[in-house]
């Protein structure tokens, strides 16, 4: 902004007095923002420390906790602290003005404490450690209404972490969904983000869902390509995986049908459906093994390229530098993997790099053309370079 003011001053749009007032105003705003950021950071770190402290206290299972002789007293005390924390959070947020941030942090803290309550109940009743998945699920179930009813992004991020932990701690996941388990996880999260109700009313939640599922989709597909897991497990038919992928495909199509006008959703539907169908084919195991080997290599590379291209496309279209940075990172990883994977011989490598270079140059031309179109659309405005 300061650079712009200097430019405006040089061009004579504003005089020195006006520039001075604006700069002073900006300075004060910057100081205020820095104080606020510091405040929020302290509150958040404090809340996280207390939350972790509470869970560790329960895990220590020590004399202080044993002061409450009966198991009901322990549960009641932990619920009382959690409810009290939530109540105080509500009071500071919506009744007593002036401590809104403290209120938000207390509500966040209560969502950590409720996890401690579930852990305590699990400890009291000596639940099997395999059932931690159940405890994480209960925690997730408790956190979700807070995130959505109060529209809180930090609590939604906690719910995503809990979803990841819950999903990957389900016992026997590998037996039922086999190596397709991470793909199913990513598709569930992405499709959830595309539910019209979530997309329209909680738009600020969806980037996190999509970012995580894209990372999981990309890296799992890359690992499948490098390890040949799909071909190695080709003989295994995983009925739960096929069923889940088919349900997810239907889910993707329903989301699209409910919001046909959304252009971004069209491209997302094509990619998501493609991924679901591709992995379902490998779950059903219906094509001949030799053909499957070729389909596997080509298909996985198409999926990887589609994810990267989609990120570039949406990133440039929405002028979102985070998506472009992610696409750059994925491209770098993909090229590095291909360099070592594709062939041992230099002539093949040379051909690969020629081809790769031509594709990337074409992509660059396409994106520049698109950016020109955007500038034209914005009336030749002064758009910043990405």
């Amino acid at each position, binding site marked *: 902004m300061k650079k712009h003011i200097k430019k405006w001053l040089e061009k004579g749009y504003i005089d020195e007095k006006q520039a001075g007032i604006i700069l002073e105003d900006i300075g004060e705003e910057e100081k205020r923002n820095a104080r606020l950021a510091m405040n929020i950071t302290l509150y958040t770190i404090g809340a996280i420390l207390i939350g972790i402290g509470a*869970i560790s206290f*329960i*895990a*220590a*299972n*020590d*004399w202080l906790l*044993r002061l409450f002789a009966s198991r*009901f007293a322990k*549960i009641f005390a932990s*619920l009382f602290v*959690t*409810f009290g924390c*939530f*109540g105080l959070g*509500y009071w500071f*947020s*919506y009744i007593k003005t002036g401590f809104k941030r403290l209120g938000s942090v207390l509500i966040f803290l209560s969502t950590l404490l*409720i996890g401690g*309550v*579930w*852990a*305590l*109940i*699990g*400890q*009291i*009743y*000596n*639940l*099997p*450690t*395999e*059932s*931690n998945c159940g*405890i994480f699920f*209960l925690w997730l*179930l*408790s956190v979700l*209404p*807070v995130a959505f*009813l*109060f529209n809180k992004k930090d609590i939604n991020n906690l719910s995503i972490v809990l979803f990841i932990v819950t999903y990957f701690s389900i016992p*026997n996941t590998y*037996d039922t969904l086999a190596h397709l388990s991470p793909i199913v996880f990513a598709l569930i999260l992405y499709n959830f983000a595309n539910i019209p109700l979530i997309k329209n009313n909680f738009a600020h939640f969806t980037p996190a869902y999509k970012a995580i599922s894209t990372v999981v989709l990309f890296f799992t597909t890359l690992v499948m390509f490098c390890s040949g897991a799909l071909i190695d497990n080709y003989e295994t038919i995983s009925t739960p995986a096929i069923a889940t992928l088919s349900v997810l495909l239907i889910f993707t199509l329903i989301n699209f049908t409910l919001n046909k006008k959304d252009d971004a959703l069209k491209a997302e539907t094509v990619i998501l459906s493609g991924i679901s169908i591709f992995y379902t084919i490998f779950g059903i195991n219906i094509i001949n093994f030799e053909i499957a080997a070729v389909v596997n290599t080509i298909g996985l590379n198409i999926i990887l390229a589609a994810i990267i291209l989609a990120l570039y496309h949406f990133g440039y279209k929405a002028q979102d530098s985070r998506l472009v940075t992610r696409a750059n990172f994925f491209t770098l990883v993909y090229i590095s993997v291909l360099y070592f994977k594709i062939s041992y011989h230099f002539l093949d490598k040379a051909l690969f790099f020629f081809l790769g270079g031509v594709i990337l140059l074409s992509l660059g031309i396409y994106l520049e053309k698109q950016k020109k179109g955007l500038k034209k659309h914005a009336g030749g405005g002064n758009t910043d370079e990405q």
Partner: protein
Amino acid sequence: MSNKTKTLIILGFWLVLALFFVAVNEKIFMTGDEIRLKVRPVDPRDLLRGQYVVLNYDISNVDVKKDTDFKRNDKVYVILQKEREIHVFKEISAHIPTNGQYIKGQVDYIRWNYDKDKNFKTLNIKYGIENLFAKEKEAKEIEKRLTKGGVAVIKLDKQGRAKVLRVE
């Protein structure tokens, strides 16, 4: 919807979840019969709930004929019989037994015996009573105390669901 209503909904929901979670586990404590099983402990740690003792029961490993149709993750019912004060293995069934005191479990894994002379395989069964949470120091003490074996006091309900109370 006002913020007050939202708060009440969330707290009400948490309370219902807590009551349900407690009730499901408490039912066995309240209504179950007390039995004693022979046990040997191991001592690991759970990040969420702290130190616990893994209890390996005599009935955790059950030998069955090689041609029996037990698979991994199958639900099984182990019928118990009382010998002095301790309950021991009597029989295993894939179906709910009609009489006798039984405990419900799930086949965790199967150990095959490749010796041609021995016509049996060993089922490792989990009953959901393999963990006993304790204080950090106490867990070590229990482990030491029970190295040569001990007895676990269990609450067992009519449906074969069990909860571990303590070890002796």
